[in-house]
């Protein structure tokens, strides 16, 4: 169910090109900060892996909610 490391990488379906690492702005509870994520170099669509959403992002949300 989770994205295995050995599986092929995601492509942007609209642009048909591989995602690359790039800086993306993430915002929550009035705070915004840049994060390095996989994104389409042309249209900007971002990929957030399931594991990242469930662990580090969830933790960061809790910290910001309690701030």
């Amino acid at each position, binding site marked *: *169910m*989770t994205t295995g490391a050995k*599986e*092929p*990488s*995601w*492509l*942007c*379906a*609209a642009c048909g090109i591989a*995602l690359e690492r*790039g*800086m*993306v*702005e*993430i*915002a*929550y509870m009035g705070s*915004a900060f840049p994060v390095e*994520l996989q*994104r389409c170099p*042309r*249209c*900007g*669509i*971002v*990929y*957030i892996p*399931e594991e990242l*959403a*469930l662990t580090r*992002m*969830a933790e*960061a*949300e*809790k*910290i910001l*909610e*309690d*701030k």
Partner: protein
Amino acid sequence: MEKQRLQELENQCIQECAPPCTAACPVHVDCRGLALFMARGDFAAAVKLLRKALPFPAVIGAVCDQPCCAYCNRGRVGGAIEMAALERAAARFGETAPPRISLLPSRGKSVAIVGSGLSGLTAAFDLRKKGYSVTVFEKDGRLGGSLREHAAGRLFPEIAEKDFSVIESMGIEVRLNTAADPRDLPGFDAVYAAPGAAPAHAFPAIDPLTYEAGTPGVFAGGSLLRGSGNYSPIFSVSDGRRAAVSIDRFLQGASLTASRTGEGSLGSCLYTKMDAVAPVPAPCVPAQGFTNEAAMQEGARCLQCQCLECVKVCTYLESFGGYPKKYVREIYNNLSIVMGVRQSNTLTNSCSLCGLCAEVCPNDLNMADVCSEARRTMVSQKRMPASAHDFALRDMAFANSDACAMALPAPGGTCSRLFFPGCQLAASAPDHVEKCYRLLQEKLGSDVGLLLRCCGAPADWAGRDDLLEQAIDEFGELHRSLGSPQLILACPSCSRVFKRLLPGLDSVSLWEILDRAGIAAPEAKAAGPVVCLHDPCSARHDDAVQESARQIAARLGCRLEELPFSRRMTACCSFGGLQWFANNKLARAGIGRRMRESTRDYLTYCSMCRDLFAGQGKRCLHMLDLLFEDDAPGRAGRACPTWSQRRDNRARLKRRLCAGIKEETMPETDGRPELIIAPDVQAVLEERFILTHDITRVIEHAEQTGRKLTRPGTDRFLAHHRVGSVTYWVEYTGTGSGPFTVHTAYSHRMEIRERADI
């Protein structure tokens, strides 16, 4: 929350009150702590603890008159703890080297002590520690005063020599064989007269609080306060200590009377439940004192008195590792933070607001009131984390939307009675709502209406007074338009909300109505199942409803067993207070505990309780299952509907009622693409509070815009879309108008600012 209110609430919790032994001891020896260290065999820690209260632990251990004994709770179940013998053993086994007593820097003032009994030596010890020069005058040739004669046979000379040797090691000057007149000691800044049981006229007016003896700077205490027949070693120590406090204050020019309420022998307000305590007889104390094994056994006999009545019965209170006095303070502090981390948001939002704590608390402290008030403050401060209650509030909004909410008769019509099943019964068993509505019409006449919506309880639990008020106002308007009929309520939570916010409302419980209507068991149901009745926590104080539920269940053939926690003492299923959403892990632990109270099937009259039990694998019936299902026992194993199914059930009920009763059809809103979701994926969605409706929106958005990711060599897509304040991600197979197979979904609240030009 005002500071004064905080203090009132804190004072209601008595867990931190001194136990009866410590309160009764005039120098407040931590008897409970001592016994604990002794039980563990940690004699060094035990004597260190003793030294905080006693200057001469071995002597007191040998001679103490133990006022603690009369108050010891163990006294009623085997005999009071032999505290003095424990103290003596602690000093004997725990203190191998002379103690190091630290002294404050010299204050340049001197005090004379007349008499070297326990009172005089304690005052000398305390004042020397505080940095005063101290001189002890003793008319005999050795230290000890009246202690020696009164304790003959118990006080071995070597114990006294060892304990009193600390006096000279601290630099206290001792003048033996020197009689002194306390009123004629020039050169001293203050005098403490502790000459033993002197004639009463020696100091006719000793202040019982300050020990002032008529002349400024002269203080007196010890046995002379009690007379020769009432010698008490421990009260002598107490006198010396309290007189030393006065002398120190006198020499510093401070008030002698301020803040002295905690001194001396006191009563205890600590409650300790004694119901299940087995007696363990007190040992005989040998003349030479306990061996270390005997001392450990005696320490272990101590009950370690404490209250914790609420913590014992509540998974929430237990899980944060403290007790209400601490929690109230933490919650208050959390509300007061301007900049910094609010560490107690989770504490505040995790309470189920069920009120069991208040039922078991000797002082009726109710954490539900504390948490409810705090949540409202957090909302008003705009500090309430959205993640805590967002899902439940969205569910409430949906229940009150046009998709689900409806009234029969339709606007314009009136009725004399109005069935209000509540949003969760409609979500769980929509056919039962319909059947129950028809049954009420059959029993009470066709003048019974039906109102489908949510009472506003989720908003109440979330501290959202704005949404609560809106729900109540909308309800009130509908209710008036229907001719202000009597309300028939199936859900105890609705009942509580309406009773609190609309106190004039004429309402009655469905269960009382059915009880009075004389619902009888059909023949086939005569030998029904043996079940345990779970009272919903919102019906805790509704004795009539509890009784009606039992009557109905019995008439429908059930053989009832009571759970250990029932009626007023019932336990929450963990949905209350939105605990299920705000702290799901805790909620699962709480419902697990409730489920384990009996291996029998449960029966309840709250559909949310029913479904949560079923969802955790506990067979559970709703009262209406007994009424409307031919195979009621089989119905106990019915799965808990998913959050998506609950929404669909409500919407479908409205469509069915509109189609069937009003003979007008609602438009089929269900033009959504078909989703194929395997049971294991469905379970994950349920755990993550992701609705199929949200998944549909993500897929529709991706298919319409083309914005999705694809994995080469597979037919899978990954798409995300923000719905409200949550971004949902769905990995799926399928294109166009579907059907779509969902492989996984997850969400986050953080917003991704996607730009093409970064």
